[in-house]
């Protein structure tokens, strides 16, 4: 008898756990929870959680965040797909997170596989296992979770009855390090494409068993725009040097990202998950726009999510009001890559605070503040209930450095913002910086301390004791950015710079410097721009016990160095070497919509120290994100924030070439020819 369509075939006997009967694993999970840390991360039960019934006809997805529950639960991308898949009638979705080390050990000792937190079904009982990839250092967890789920690690080893393993999220813009382990990657926004994928998988599962071959499925998935099936591509090398990736099967030479043209059509999540236990970002989160065109050259998120698509103001208000009422949260974060740039941000937040149905005790947090006094005044107003810390991100220590990275914040802007912050009662301000940036000199490093010192002085005019925390990350060049060609600083050089910074900052009372471990920065560099050969390195690190590499107490540099060496790969070649304009890059067959010429020219301009304005309010550079994709910015206001684009006060009179669609404020719009 052939199995009902959509169900999984009986599993080979070698599998540790046979889920054929689809019974909840709770009876074997429960006894483990008495002896593990934070057991509430394994019980689910969130408000908004679904408990789908597996009828064997719907495609069953297990959405997996490969880090702890506390980190993964708030992930909005995963929650959006969870709703879409559960609302469709041909699919259902449950969730899983990486069990912490003590729980994983208990599970392995007792033969308990990775399980969904809703029905407590084993991972192997799902048709699709889909990972959200938000950071490179979680890749060893991906392998660990597949193994814990009883799924063969390599795509090529999976049988018809094994789950289809997929991945989405920002890291898929260089999918190559995980190419051997993932059956299909989704590049870009998932809202629309997930339904198309589900339709293909559904018809494959319902097809005659003779046609139910993974090769057939791969080719069908590869025909969907924005889906990358790595098994249909091959990479070439010349010694250490990567030479290119081309299709070896029926697949397009270039996979172009998917972009949701209008965020207003996707007011999701409608039922944000409210956990029973504490998680990061434990508040209502409402995404107010997607994309960013400030053009910071180090920022992959900004480059790959263009153009800017604002959510309509009324929809934002509705989502906030409904969300607060439904959840009981007293804090809402308006999320985006740069929320202070949202058209009409002041009136939006004022409406939220003044809305009587919100109970008068709501604070609004803007995760990313623009560096100006005006923004600080807004922050003071909206955080009457509970003040969170204030954070600014100048990123570079000198004006020259900030021109190189196109973070055009003038010192006056920063001092004005900090002055306003201390004047409004804050006593502690955090500043983000990067070290290891291209063309960086020691004076740029010392500039960080100088900025910090001046900020402390400003604070002391208001309060006897103030703290400036300078949080310093090591720069990792990312794919699809103008810096994708540049050489990353060596670990020793980063360590020298951190030492320089520490020595100089010791003289300044009130300035605290925190820095990211240069060793972790180096490993992130290996994976970020790695090609397929890095897959074997990731596997070795995992086999040697290197999971949760994002967690400093678990991070093991030695495992990575050993694995690189035993695979015969050079870190100098991969990480610390500048690339030439003609050189093949491992992600060349993946397109974020950006012209390579645009990125290269921007890289050259960076080296000359010249910045560019934000194309939301100034002429289009034809980066490709809009022009090639037939989409455009959706912003409600044609006017840049006070102080001009990027605080540089550029002349905006030539805005007519910007492909902008105005969604409201018609009288303003009429002054611009669109």
């Amino acid at each position, binding site marked *: 008898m052939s199995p009902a369509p959509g169900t999984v075939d009986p599993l080979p006997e070698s599998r540790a756990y046979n889920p054929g009967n689809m019974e909840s694993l709770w009876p074997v999970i429960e006894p483990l929870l008495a002896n593990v840390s934070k057991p509430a991360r394994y019980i689910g*039960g969130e408000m908004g959680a679904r408990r789908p019934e597996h009828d064997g006809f719907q495609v069953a997805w297990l959405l997996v965040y490969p880090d702890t529950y506390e980190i993964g639960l708030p992930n909005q991308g995963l929650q959006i797909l969870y709703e879409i898949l559960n609302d469709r009638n041909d699919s259902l979705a449950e969730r899983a997170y990486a069990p912490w080390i003590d729980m994983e050990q208990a599970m392995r000792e007792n033969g308990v596989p990775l399980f969904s937190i809703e029905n407590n079904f084993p991972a192997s009982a799902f048709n699709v296992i889909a990972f959200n990839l938000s950071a490179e250092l979680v890749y060893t967890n991906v392998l660990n979770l597949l193994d814990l789920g009883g799924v063969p690690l390599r795509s090529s080893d999976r049988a018809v009855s094994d789950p289809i393993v997929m991945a989405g999220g920002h890291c898929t813009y260089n999918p190559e390090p995980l190419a051997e382990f993932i059956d299909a990657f989704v590049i870009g926004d998932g809202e629309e494409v997930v339904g198309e994928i589900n339709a293909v998988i559904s018809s494959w599962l319902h097809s005659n068993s003779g046609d139910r071959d993974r090769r057939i499925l791969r080719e069908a998935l590869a025909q969907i725009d924005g889906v990358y099936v790595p098994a249909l591509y091959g990479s070439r090398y010349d010694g250490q040097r990567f030479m290119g990736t081309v299709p070896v099967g029926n697949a397009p030479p270039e996979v172009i990202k998917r972009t949701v043209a209008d965020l207003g059509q996707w007011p999701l999540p409608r039922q944000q998950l409210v956990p*029973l*236990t504490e998680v990061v970002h434990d508040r209502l989160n409402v995404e107010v726009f997607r994309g960013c065109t400030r053009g910071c050259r180090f920022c992959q998120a900004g480059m790959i999510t263009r153009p800017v698509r604002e959510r309509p103001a009324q929809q934002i208000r509705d989502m906030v009001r409904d969300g607060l009422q439904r959840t009981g949260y007293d804090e809402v974060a308006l999320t985006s890559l740069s929320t202070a740039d949202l058209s009409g941000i002041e009136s939006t937040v004022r409406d939220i605070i003044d809305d009587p149905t919100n109970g008068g005790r709501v604070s609004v947090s803007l995760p990313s503040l623009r560096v100006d006094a005006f923004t600080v005044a807004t922050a003071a107003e909206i955080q009457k209930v509970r003040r969170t810390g204030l954070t600014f991100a100048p990123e570079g220590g000198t004006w020259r450095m900030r021109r190189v990275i196109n973070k055009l914040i003038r010192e006056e802007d920063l001092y004005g913002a900090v002055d306003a912050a201390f004047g409004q009662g804050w006593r502690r301000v955090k500043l983000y910086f990067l070290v290891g940036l291209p063309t960086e000199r020691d004076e740029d490093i010392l500039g960080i301390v100088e900025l910090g010192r001046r900020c402390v002085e400003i604070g002391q005019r208001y309060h006897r004791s103030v703290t400036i925390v300078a949080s310093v990350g090591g720069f990792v060049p990312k794919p699809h950015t103008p810096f994708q060609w540049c050489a990353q600083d060596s670990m020793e050089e980063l360590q020298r710079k951190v030492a320089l910074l520490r020595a100089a900052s010791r003289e300044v009372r009130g300035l605290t410097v925190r820095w990211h471990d240069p060793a972790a920065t180096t490993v992130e560099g290996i994976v970020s721009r790695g090609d397929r050969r890095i897959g074997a390195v990731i596997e070795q690190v995992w086999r040697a016990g290197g999971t949760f590499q994002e967690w400093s107490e678990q991070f093991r540099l030695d495992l990575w160095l050993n694995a690189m060496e035993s695979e015969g790969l050079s870190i100098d070649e991969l990480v610390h070497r500048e690339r030439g304009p003609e050189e093949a890059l491992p992600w060349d067959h993946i397109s974020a919509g950006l012209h390579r010429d645009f990125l290269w020219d921007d890289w050259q301009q960076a080296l000359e120290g010249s910045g560019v304005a934000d194309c939301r309010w100034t002429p289009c550079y034809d980066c490709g994100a809009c022009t090639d994709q037939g989409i455009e910015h959706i912003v409600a206001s044609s006017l840049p924030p006070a102080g001009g684009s990027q605080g540089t006060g550029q002349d905006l009179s030539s805005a007519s070439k910007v492909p902008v669609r105005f969604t409201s404020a018609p009288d303003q719009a009429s002054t611009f020819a669109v």
Partner: protein
Amino acid sequence: MTGSSAEMQLRIRYTKLGKIRFTSQRDVARLWERALRRSRLPVAWSKGFSPRPLLSFGLALPTGAESLGEYLDIELDSWDSPGREVAHDAIGILDPVTSAALSTFLSSLLPDGLSVQAVAPVPAGSGSLQHEVSSCTWELEVAGVTEVQVARQIDAVLRSSNVPVRRVRKGRMLEDDIRPAIRSLTLGADCGRDHRGTEGTVALSATVATKPRGVRPGELLEGLEADLVLVRARRTHQWIEHGDARWEPLSEAGELPGETGLHAQERAS
């Protein structure tokens, strides 16, 4: 409670049963804060730079333990606060009917496993839960031992004058004598509730003092010196004691300590 302009204090009795027992005391506090915001009851807030709603929970329940009677005191502001209609309707006059309605309403705002049994206004000047509750009763299910073995160990504990257990405090190992805290220790479930024990386990019941500090179920079992596994711990009662009389802070029927009605009062054993 101090420094508030609250006009009224409500005491809530609720259960914590099932999967949700793996949440911590802090988690439950957060769940209550969100449920109360949704309820629109005019909860009073503390003053200052970082105001908090004025909620006070009684004796902490260890993560993993269930309870048939947890308590929460809430301070309420004047009816002029937002949401007053709901509050007024629900507790304007807290007769038994509205109390039941309010219990049902609050339960509907809480996740599965937290369920409100009774609500009652507490007279001004009542002591805090933390302060008043001085003992509690546990029902424990253990595995890996026979009933006879457990009975023998219970006997040994009750006859000895000193039951030392070790615990870590501030990174140092201390030895504590828990014998003075043990009020009673018996084989079998403590009361006639419709609770079927887990198969293959032995049930025992213990009443322990909560002052100067609470004895945790794990410590009790350590005192039994048997090689057993705790399968389930359930707090069945918390007690406010006066002389040899004891009351629950709020009975399931909604009665406060000292109120008439003999069923709210039990003779201490």
